[in-house]
């Protein structure tokens, strides 16, 4: 995922949609924090301005390739209504110029069998987690590293396809490996390898990820008037439905399987697992998208209709897989499904490497959170008040970015815990004369500011401050109103101009007169605890 700063309007829609809390809006542009992003695509779905982009491979890359091979997710079969069969869709891909089109439904069935064999060989693994959704793997590596060991180390179908092509097919065909390109046709960009990936299985087997959206139009044309002269489809309904939520849980035949889909729901189940619950579970199928890959961000078809089409195809082709178990066992013993590297944790930032300091920061975050409005508006550019407090304490945001805090004025820590001083208390304590604006004597006072330059006061005085000045003209009142100052104190016995007094009366801003100079007066105000 990336955000086009030109197209971004700086609204809060992606910020709010991001379950990983990986987006911040700064200076009117949304930014993705790569170490938190799992590439789920929710920001892409939420953006009305097309400013969020998915990194996928353009079709030109396929055209330039000598030996392009298509490895389409079986969800592609659900995108063209009830009439187009998987075989027709595979043939249409061939017509588009792919030299070889893999029936990924079939490879998915092989994958189910391989996962099942792995689970049977590892009875202590409870549960084994399907490695198919890369966003889920990123989520586990970041937030649930203790569950990394539960991921079944069987190559997911797209990678397995690439491996078979490059290690077997290319040799058989006499292709120069450098000229072979394996393209996964996918409903999401989560399979694009990123710099923060916990495990890179795809390299060097998968060369690109093509979006359903990019290939949909050409495919539709290729389907038109298609002659079904040969058969590419080997898969049954089990392979067709494999990437739909529940598809793997149904296909992997072990006791107690569970399928979960959607970011928050997946997090919930992983929390339960990490807490040592769901102990009976043998197999977990988890998809970051609602309804699994059918609900991917780059699908074309509505996902309820896609499910309907998939179920229809399942009935038509039967749910019984014809994959030969003995062959799978042979491939397992040849290590064809093995991961070449383990998944590594993706360390999440802690508040501080020293626990004592981390606790202090946590306290500061909590204190600040209680002062924030809690309306979760996102105007500050952080997704919610608690996260904003964290961003402020960690130095990634300014308190004044919160419109509520800005209005209240100044660093909360200083004003909090002080006794409220009112203008009338100051008048009494220092024997000041009230020349105008007595209606404002109940106003609370928070600190003071000394300056005779109006724009300096406009820029720097905090709301609630007492303003000590020698200026007596009426603009002083205007500035005091605009900055929501508590009162104006004219020093050295100066008297307000007539218009100034009138305006102060009208606005209810007390204009006080002190015989003392600014220096002396400021000292006394300090003694009062201001």
């Amino acid at each position, binding site marked *: 995922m990336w955000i086009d700063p030109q197209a971004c309007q700086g609204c809060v829609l992606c910020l709010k949609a991001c379950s990983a809390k990986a987006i911040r809006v700064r200076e009117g542009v949304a930014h993705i924090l790569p170490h938190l992003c799992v590439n789920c695509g929710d920001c892409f779905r939420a953006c009305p301005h097309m400013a969020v982009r998915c990194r996928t491979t353009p079709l030109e890359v396929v055209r330039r390739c000598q030996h392009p091979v298509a490895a389409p997710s079986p969800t592609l079969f659900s995108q063209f209504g009830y009439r187009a069969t998987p075989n027709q869709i595979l043939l249409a891909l061939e017509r588009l110029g792919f030299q070889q089109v893999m029936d990924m439904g079939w490879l998915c069935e092989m994958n189910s069998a391989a996962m099942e064999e792995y689970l049977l060989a590892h009875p202590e693994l409870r549960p084994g987690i399907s490695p198919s959704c890369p966003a889920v793997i990123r989520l586990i590596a970041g937030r649930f590293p203790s569950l990394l060991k539960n991921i079944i180390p069987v190559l997911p179908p797209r990678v397995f396809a690439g491996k078979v092509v490059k290690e077997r097919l290319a040799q058989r065909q006499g292709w120069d490996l450098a000229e072979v390109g394996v393209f996964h046709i996918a409903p999401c960009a989560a399979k694009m390898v990123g710099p923060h990936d916990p495990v890179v299985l795809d390299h060097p087997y998968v060369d690109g990820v093509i979006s359903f959206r990019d290939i949909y139009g050409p495919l539709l044309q290729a389907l038109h008037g298609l002659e079904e002269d040969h058969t590419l489809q080997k898969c049954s309904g089990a392979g067709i439905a494999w990437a739909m939520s529940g598809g793997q849980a149904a296909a992997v035949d072990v006791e107690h399987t569970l399928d979960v889909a959607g970011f928050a729901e997946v997090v919930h189940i992983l929390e339960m697992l990490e*807490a040592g619950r769901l102990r009976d579970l043998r197999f977990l199928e988890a998809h970051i998208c609602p309804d699994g890959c059918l609900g991917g961000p780059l699908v074309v078809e509505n996902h309820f209709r896609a499910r309907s089409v998939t179920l229809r195809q399942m009935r038509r082709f039967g749910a019984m897989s014809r994959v030969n178990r003995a062959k799978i066992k042979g491939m397992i013993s040849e290590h064809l499904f093995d991961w070449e590297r383990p998944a590594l944790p993706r360390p999440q930032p802690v508040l501080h490497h020293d626990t*004592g300091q981390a*606790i202090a920061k946590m306290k500061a975050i909590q204190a600040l959170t209680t002062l924030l409005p809690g309306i979760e508006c996102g105007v500050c550019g952080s997704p919610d008040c608690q996260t904003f407090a964290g961003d402020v304490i960690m130095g990634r945001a300014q308190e004044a970015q919160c419109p509520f805090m800005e209005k209240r004025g100044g660093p909360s820590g200083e004003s909090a815990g002080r006794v409220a001083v009112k203008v009338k208390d100051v008048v009494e304590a220092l024997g000041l004369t009230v020349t105008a604006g007595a209606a404002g004597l109940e106003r609370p006072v928070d600190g003071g500011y000394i300056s005779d330059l109006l724009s300096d006061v406009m820029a720097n005085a905090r709301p609630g401050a007492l303003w000590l000045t020698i200026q007596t003209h009426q603009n002083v009142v205007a500035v005091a109103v605009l900055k929501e100052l508590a009162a104006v104190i004219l020093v050295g016995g100066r008297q307000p101009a007539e218009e100034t007094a009138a305006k102060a009366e009208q606005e209810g801003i007390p204009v006080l007169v002190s015989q003392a100079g600014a220096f002396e007066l400021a000292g006394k105000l300090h003694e009062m605890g201001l």
Partner: protein
Amino acid sequence: MSQEPPRDGDEPEFLRAFAIQAGDFAGAGNVSIAVKNLLKELGFPPEVLRRAAIAAFEAEMNVVMYGGGGQMEVYLSPRAVRLVISDQGPGIPDLDLAMQEGWSTATPEMREMGFGAGMGLPNIKRNSDAFCIDTGPGRGTRLQVDIFPR
């Protein structure tokens, strides 16, 4: 029945309190999850997270099931995690019995949901470095658990 006093000069300080709702089986576990995530963010090692999560979860469930609702307070120092779980419920009449593995007053409905193995209190004790419980008929229950990073 405290087994090991907190170490000198390392008294954990109050950080936060979480409310636990009575009979809220749907939300049950959420407080323990929040506590675990809090400790995670602070950088406590996995071994501490694991023990704290077990203790917190069992104690939370007891408050949900028997205690009639209550709260969990978190106290922290770099060298100690202290959880104080309290309720104003019926209290435990015979603590020695309750501490025995397998002893439980869970209802058939609770057992149906997988609770009531009578392992909660013993597990809390096993996973903590200091464990102290104050309870009695009509007095409610206050459980204090310390976990020291190793």
